[in-house]
């Protein structure tokens, strides 16, 4: 369990950046998307998501903007910045290399 938590902790930023890069979105929907896309594997603690989003914003990787919906409700949408896109591209490359290397060792080709 703690191994899973450590893995998620190390990749939280990349997961959030990936979702925001796909489409500008807000906190509540990010939690739902993560759960849906991972078939329920990623169940983010709701309270920890917002500090993570604000950390990314402070680092200049995303930018939050308030939007008022026709229903009158307000939501803070997060948009990707050019710095965020560059960081995401770097992280994806590192992740793909890492995943390939791990797979080569843990699931060696038979025959």
């Amino acid at each position, binding site marked *: 369990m703690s191994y899973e938590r450590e893995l998620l902790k190390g990749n939280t930023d990349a997961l959030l950046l990936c979702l925001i890069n796909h489409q500008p979105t807000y906190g509540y929907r990010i939690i739902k998307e993560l759960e849906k896309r991972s078939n329920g594997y990623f169940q983010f*603690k709701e309270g*920890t998501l*917002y500090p993570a989003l*604000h950390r990314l914003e402070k680092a200049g990787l995303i930018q939050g903007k308030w939007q008022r919906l026709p229903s009158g*409700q307000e*939501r803070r949408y997060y948009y990707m910045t050019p710095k965020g896109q560059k960081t995401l591209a770097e992280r994806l490359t590192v992740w793909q290399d890492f995943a390939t290397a791990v797979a080569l060792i843990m699931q060696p080709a038979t025959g």
Partner: protein
Amino acid sequence: MKAMSTKLKYTDGLKDYLRLDAAIEANVVRELKAHLEDKSRELIESGLSKKEATATATKLLGSPRIVAKQMYEVYSQGSWRQAFFAALPHLLVAALFAMRCWKNTFWLIGMLIAIAGSVIYGWCRGKPAWLFPWLGYCLIPVMAVGILLIYLPSGWAWFAATAYIPLALLVIFSVTKQTIRKDWLFASLMLLPIPIVLGWMLALELEDKLIWHEQLHEFAPLIALSFVVLALTVATFIRIRQRWAKIGALLTLEIFILVIVGLGGKSAIGFGGWLILVLLALLLLLGPALLERKIRESDRKRLKSPNKSTRRLLSIISARRN
């Protein structure tokens, strides 16, 4: 109504622990409120009552204390530039003694202008963390008047002291109280030099002008060193994220500086005097935390009172906080 109060209780709890700039704090609270509304709506659609939905939504969001702590750690770290600017007043005082310029009028006027300018600039820019070490030096005229009392004839000195001490305490208390409304740690940061300045004043034996001048020349390098360590303390404070580590850094380094003052001041301070200085340092560093609790409790009580004018007054205080 009950669901509304659960939400309010949560956001109030969050505000109690956030201690961030007003604009950031308002953004965070607004965002979490929007999240609670979304989550509550989802839970109501799944069959829960409004009251149950709000209670579950706040529970799922987690303890306001933990959320606020994590949010605080995102914003509490200042940049290197801010750390340098916060340490600058102490570095200027250190340079004053290292270069023995305490009689240089230009240097002193320059310092006064720098202090006044920085305080006005920082005050108008939303009271950032770097402002408070500068603000601490604005209390020096209050202490300087106290020093001048020593030179009055003995009968007059006692008479003046009885009027001066309550007045000086009133000034220090009201400035501290205003600072505490932002964050008690900033008040500690502001009051940090007081035990050190008092320690050196005791060591210098101010009653005798001749000894005083001789000792000032002798102690100058150590006085400079103590203010360099003070500058490092402030810079460390600004750069650290965790609140407990900030408090630890202030306490440890302040005691370390008092050890320098105690050893440098030779027998003039004595062990008893040194212990009093340490107790004073602890009081000035941790006292603001107790004062903050008292202020918040009395604010909460006043907010609960039905008096409309009091509520309006509190909302003005809250707006002025930052």
